[in-house]
């Protein structure tokens, strides 16, 4: 089904958070204020790699209006954070490793005073050799950024005997692929409000993707019991993985506890660029061989991932890339080796796609290059090697079986874009593109396609809890309480839609509570395309018991037999009439009716850390127009076929694929947070180029393939990342079709595609005439 408002009918619902968003009434956490509030600011390192000789804060502290200046000496607990490895200093004391490193923080009456105070903090540095390149950092003579060495994580995977298998291959392609340091560029930069409560507790209003994880990390830093910290984490103005790790929270919390005053921080865009996470730049070298029939036989991969100064989830991202460079293909002989390497370049971390984007760009590029050598249609080559129902996952692990890979392959094969490309012509009806004949001679077109399977959940060996709570509150509201965060993805809307469709409630019957560690159960993180699946599975578990409790209570209250009652809009119904409203039902209660469930995200039994069990499959075709004068690429059409089980929320699903693809357009064509000498050259959105409406004015069609095998019990699969992971190789293939040039580095450099001969031929003038 092509997914859109019309095809969705009444399932296209207005988002419950929409009214406040379009009216500007929604208060984000960085919009909050409190009586007596101070402004917090952080002093960041002035050098990317240096020893700290001294830090002097006296002059800053003496500025009128400054209430606190704090450094490493003022951290009562662990001076470190990091979800997987808490080794990033809250405040550096002996050494800085990137220009986002924090050295001190100030709380002052206003921003101007805080800024002035920062300028008075004297830090003496002794420069250390800069590690700007991951492979340089791996050399034995390189200075160590961390005692344990410059390799954060090393992965290996091997099956069969690739050495021997390559010898027998009819065709072998070797290529090295490079991907950019992409920035999340959430529109709301990091920030929040930190309030020391009169009872000694601390309330943190600041964005994250896992409130309970922030609470745990802050508890270690502040040496406060977790129960004394309340983290309120929604609503959020975008995250995309970037706010998963702590950012301003330690500084706000420490300053608030020190001054006993509310403290607000809100990063400027430049500070966000400087301190925030980015997507790992990767260098991926692949050698891939097939027999004369196009059966891929051997595949060797080496991944070098620039993880920057600290770990955060750099190891987990590399695990993900290691799995996804093998992908949805049956390959008997495989060898993968990966290194996540510390450098002085920012900090790379979690970002939508989680290492899949880089891996899939390289893998799909190999398949296209092999097809060229074979003289075979690239889509046909994929068919010959595609995984089938029953096959193990990329690492040989048991996975939840679906026909997803074949389904998306077939859907794309039948798509107007690929059929038009096969006919050698341009797509007709409804296409945004101009017919070939009407294009100026310096515009050429091409069509390309790619396929991906993308894992969801955190994977084997990593705690991945799920769960939630439903209750009939004493005021008659049906409460759904989950430990997730709303950063725009539409999680609240999806929860509401599931409750309405599965239970029969009306939207007005509901109160959905998320993102507040004082009241939510541990539902795990809002990451890894996992929350929709976990909400669905939680409701599956809760529905029989919660329904029975409501109906039995209604039966007891009204004297009607429970077996003849059902849940509906506004209350419990008998036949076609409302028997008792939820509010009336609640009046008879002394305690709320509560049902709770706890479980784990399903994992593969194979004991390999990070290996996935649930996957989403997608195939994409794109048509591009390439301007030979400017070297710029415009994507006129995209067709996404997505196999992710039932569509839980059509508007959210479509929005995730469209939005994910926009992020992929940036990754492919324009986005790179450029660093030289350990400093960002791109400091703001004037030079860091996020796609605008003009870059996204082509047509996007999304086909949702909802069938799952009958025995499947896992329901809707995540779709938060899949729209963003495979556009790059499809565009590269389209460019190749148009101009026979191979792209191996992203973003595509216009210089690669620019031709000069038109000017010498005076083609411009003749066309204009």
């Amino acid at each position: 089904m092509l997914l859109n408002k019309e095809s969705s009918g009444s399932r296209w619902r207005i988002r419950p958070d929409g009214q406040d968003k379009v009216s500007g009434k929604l208060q984000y956490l960085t919009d909050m204020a409190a009586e007596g509030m101070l402004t917090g600011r952080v002093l960041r390192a002035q050098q990317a790699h240096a020893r700290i000789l001294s830090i002097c804060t006296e002059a800053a502290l003496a500025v009128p209006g400054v209430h606190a200046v704090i450094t490493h000496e003022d951290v009562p607990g662990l001076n470190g954070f990091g979800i997987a490895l808490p080794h990033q200093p809250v405040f550096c004391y002996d050494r800085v490793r990137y220009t986002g490193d924090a050295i001190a923080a100030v709380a002052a009456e206003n921003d101007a005073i805080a800024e002035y105070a920062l300028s008075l903090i004297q830090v003496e540095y002794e420069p250390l050799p800069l590690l700007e390149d991951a492979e340089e950092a791996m050399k034995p003579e390189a200075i160590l950024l961390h005692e344990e060495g410059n390799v954060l994580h090393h992965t290996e995977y091997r099956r069969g005997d690739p050495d021997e298998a390559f010898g027998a291959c009819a065709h072998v392609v070797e290529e090295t692929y490079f991907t950019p340091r992409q920035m999340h560029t959430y529109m709301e930069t990091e920030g929040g409000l930190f309030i020391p409560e009169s009872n000694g507790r601390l309330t943190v209003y600041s964005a994250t993707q896992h409130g309970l994880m922030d609470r745990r990390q802050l508890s270690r830093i502040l040496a406060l019991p977790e129960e004394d910290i309340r983290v309120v984490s929604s609503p959020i103005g975008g995250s995309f993985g970037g706010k998963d790790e702590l950012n301003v929270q330690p500084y706000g919390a420490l300053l608030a506890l020190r001054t006993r005053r509310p403290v607000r921080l809100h990063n400027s865009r430049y500070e966000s660029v400087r301190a925030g996470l980015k997507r790992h730049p990767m260098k991926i070298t692949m050698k891939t061989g097939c027999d004369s029939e196009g059966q891929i036989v051997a595949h060797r991969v080496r991944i070098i991932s620039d993880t920057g100064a600290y770990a955060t989830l750099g190891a987990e991202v590399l695990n993900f890339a290691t799995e996804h460079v093998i992908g949805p293909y049956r390959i008997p002989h495989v060898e993968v080796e990966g290194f996540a390497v510390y450098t002085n370049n920012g900090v790379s971390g979690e970002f939508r796609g989680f290492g899949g984007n880089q891996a899939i760009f390289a893998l799909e590029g190999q398949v296209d290059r092999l097809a060229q050598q074979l003289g075979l249609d690239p889509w046909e080559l994929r068919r010959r090697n595609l995984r089938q129902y029953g096959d193990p996952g990329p690492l040989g692990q048991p996975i939840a079986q679906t026909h997803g890979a074949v389904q998306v392959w077939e859907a794309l094969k039948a798509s107007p874009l690929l059929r038009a490309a096969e006919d050698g012509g341009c797509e007709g009806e409804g296409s945004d593109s101009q017919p070939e004949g009407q294009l100026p001679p310096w515009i050429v077109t091409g069509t390309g396609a790619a396929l991906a399977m993308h894992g969801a959940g955190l994977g084997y060996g990593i705690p991945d809890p799920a769960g939630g709570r439903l209750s009939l509150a004493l005021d008659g509201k049906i409460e759904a309480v989950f430990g997730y965060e709303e950063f725009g993805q539409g999680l609240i809307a999806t929860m509401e839609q599931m409750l309405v469709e599965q239970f029969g409630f009306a939207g007005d019957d509901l109160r959905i509570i998320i993102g507040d560690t004082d009241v939510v159960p541990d539902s795990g993180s809002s990451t890894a395309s996992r929350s929709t699946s976990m909400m669905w599975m939680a409701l599956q578990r809760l529905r029989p018991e919660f329904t029975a409790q409501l109906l039995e209570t209604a039966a007891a209250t009204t004297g009607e037999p429970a077996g003849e009652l059902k849940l509906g809009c506004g209350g419990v119904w008998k036949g076609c009439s409302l028997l008792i409203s939820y509010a009336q039902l609640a009046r008879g209660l002394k305690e709320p009716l509560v049902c709770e469930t706890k479980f784990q995200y399903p994992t593969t039994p194979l004991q390999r850390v990070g290996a996935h069990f649930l996957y989403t499959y997608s195939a994409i075709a794109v048509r591009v127009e390439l301007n030979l004068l400017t070297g710029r690429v415009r994507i006129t059409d995209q067709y996404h076929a997505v196999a992710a089980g039932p569509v839980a929320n059509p508007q959210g699903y479509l929005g995730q694929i469209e939005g994910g693809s926009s992020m992929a357009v940036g990754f492919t064509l324009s986005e790179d947070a450029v660093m030289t000498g350990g400093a960002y050259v791109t400091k703001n959105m004037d030079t860091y180029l996020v796609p605008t409406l003009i870059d996204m004015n082509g047509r996007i069609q999304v086909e949702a393939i909802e069938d799952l095998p009958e025995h499947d019990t896992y329901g809707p699969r995540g779709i938060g990342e899949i729209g963003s992971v495979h556009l790059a190789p499809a565009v590269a293939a389209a460019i190749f079709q148009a101009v026979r040039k191979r792209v191996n580095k992203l973003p595509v450099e216009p210089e690669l595609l620019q031709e000069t001969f038109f000017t010498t031929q005076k083609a411009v003038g003749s066309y204009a005439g």
Partner: protein
Amino acid sequence: MPDNFRLEEMGEMAGADIPAGPLYTLNCTVNGRALSLEVPPGRRLLSILREDLELTGTKRSCEIGRCGACMVLVDGRPVNACLTMAYQCGGAEITTIEGLGEAGLHPVQRAFLEEGGFQCGYCTPGMVISVVGLLRENPSPAQEDIEEALSGNICRCTGYGGIMRAVNKAIESGVSP
């Protein structure tokens, strides 16, 4: 504050209010309400709205006039509040997202709501303001006019699909200026 106080890099200048001198009496209307404020003449409209008037629907994001999150209408025309200073607003009629739609939602806001022209919502106030500004000038803009009018508004979530559907719906519904 000393004269020689300088930010270390131009990149950090984004978002700075020009330090205080003699105060300026800003007389203007905000969302139809007449105001008189004593502010430094170089204080940014963004700070006046968000900090002084607590109208936080106007968002802070890039602070260099690139992203459009802080768009407001000044005398009916969309401007970046991060680039507009107090002294430039004397006598002006300023409309923020909070001032649209006197009774309920403005038709452009309703179109965004119904078509799903937003996700995180942080760019939405600025986006809506730019669309309202466009449709005031040109009630039936061509695709190129829309692209031009919204070229200064960045949305990171939606990929603009929902936004274009919302704009087209607003045009179809015939938004009155």
